[in-house]
């Protein structure tokens, strides 16, 4: 069975685990960097990105996470996870993991009272997908090899670059597992590809 990790420092970890299991994958909650060796792909969940970054630094996770991505293993960032993956963040220009060629803006849709859910289309993956946006970021700019998967009122809310997948909303909060399934399929493909190298 394909083993996929969920970074378990803080945030909606349990929901991602449930969603992965519903897609037929085995989920592992990652709290120590050594555990990254056990998994073929990794989800960076929603939560508070500043909190996660502090814990990433504290436990010396940063390089381990970068190496994980650079080795070709797929990573999926949702909401705060998107912020972690981004090469640049709005006004502060530097990023955290800086793995994905996107520029993100934090809390871009506003505060909690502006949080919303809406049906969006995920290009080639799912139509009429109920997306839950909570103090959500969006993507301001994308690099040349980034494919835009979804927009909401012209704001980019989901994108993919090779083995990196990111979205501004929370696919783990609903029972619609099509987007998570897409990531599980990405991990399966990369397993085959990495095995043949």
């Amino acid at each position, binding site marked *: 069975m394909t083993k996929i990790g969920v970074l*378990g*420092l*803080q*945030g*909606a*970890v*349990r*929901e991602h685990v449930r969603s992965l299991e519903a897609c037929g994958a085995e989920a592992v909650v990652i*709290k120590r960097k050594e555990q990254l060796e056990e998994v073929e792909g990794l989800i960076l969940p*929603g*939560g*508070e990105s*500043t*909190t996660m970054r*502090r*814990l990433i630094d*504290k436990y010396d996770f940063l390089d381990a996470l970068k190496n994980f991505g650079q080795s070709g293993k797929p990573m999926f960032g949702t*909401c*705060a996870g998107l912020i972690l993956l981004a090469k640049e963040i709005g006004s502060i220009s530097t990023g955290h993991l800086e793995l994905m060629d996107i520029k993100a803006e*934090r*809390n871009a849709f506003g*505060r*909690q*009272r*502006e*949080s*919303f*859910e*809406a*049906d969006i289309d995920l290009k080639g993956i799912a139509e009429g997908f109920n997306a*839950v*946006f*909570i*103090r959500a970021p969006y993507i301001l700019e994308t690099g040349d090899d980034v494919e835009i998967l979804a927009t*909401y009122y012209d704001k980019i809310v989901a994108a993919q670059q090779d083995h990196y997948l990111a979205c501004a909303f*929370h696919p783990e*909060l*609903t029972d619609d597992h099509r987007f998570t399934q897409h990531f599980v399929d990405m991990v399966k493909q990369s397993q085959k590809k990495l095995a043949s190298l």
Partner: protein
Amino acid sequence: MSKTGTDRVKRGMAEMQKGGVIMDVVNAEQAKIAEEAGAVAVMALERVPSDIRAAGGVARMADPTIVEEVMNAVSIPVMAKARIGHIVEARVLESLGVDYIDESEVLTPADEIYHINKTDYTVPFVCGCRDIGEAVRRIGEGASMLRTKGEPGTGNIVEAVRHMRKVQSQIREIVGLSEDELMVYAKETGAPFELLKEIKSEGRLPVVNFAAGGIATPSDAALMMQLGADGVFVGSGIFKSENPAKFARSIVEATTHYDDYKLIGELSKGLGTAMKGIEMSTLTPADRMQDRSK
């Protein structure tokens, strides 16, 4: 078509706070210390609970200037407290744009019978509970997040433990009940029947449940996590300690790694003095904030 203020959006916000620490702050400077230490949110207050205790009198919603000052100082979510049943304080906080309202027994209740109908609001609410009856009644009124009450401002973990154990054991009890026993359980606990059915089938509360009221050390925070809390609120415990920044960081780490005793041992070294606590038996009935609502 987008929808704001749905259950999913309101409860989901609390899901994102899981595994984290929410800290009481009274100004921008403290808010920044909390954010820097890794707090997932801050609670903007005029006074922390131990000072509310010391001051006596009527405790009300904070001056909106303080709430706005804190909102402008940090990028993490900002919560604020309204008095129980005080519809207008809650609306004022909602209009300020706070991310979560705590309808809290730490403030002097405005209504001794009715809580706010929280389903009416776009902003989500967190409420306190001591047992499953209170927990499920608050959810029935529209709370999107719970916290066990403990006894605020005491730095004494005993009541927080009592309430978390009670709620967790009652959830296990509900799971084990047959359908026909559930209605009598609803009658006895005063918990809405339909929500009890949901708890029985899911095996857990439908909203996130944090621990609060008495957490003063990293070990206290880890203890509450082990007892089943989704995260912790720390009120007076941080800014009434000798070294707030260090206490804040240590409590955040102990909450993440609540079963790593070696780490918690390291975190506890040379922390300085924790807040001075209060023994429960020295509190008069009027001092007990947890008894202010049911």
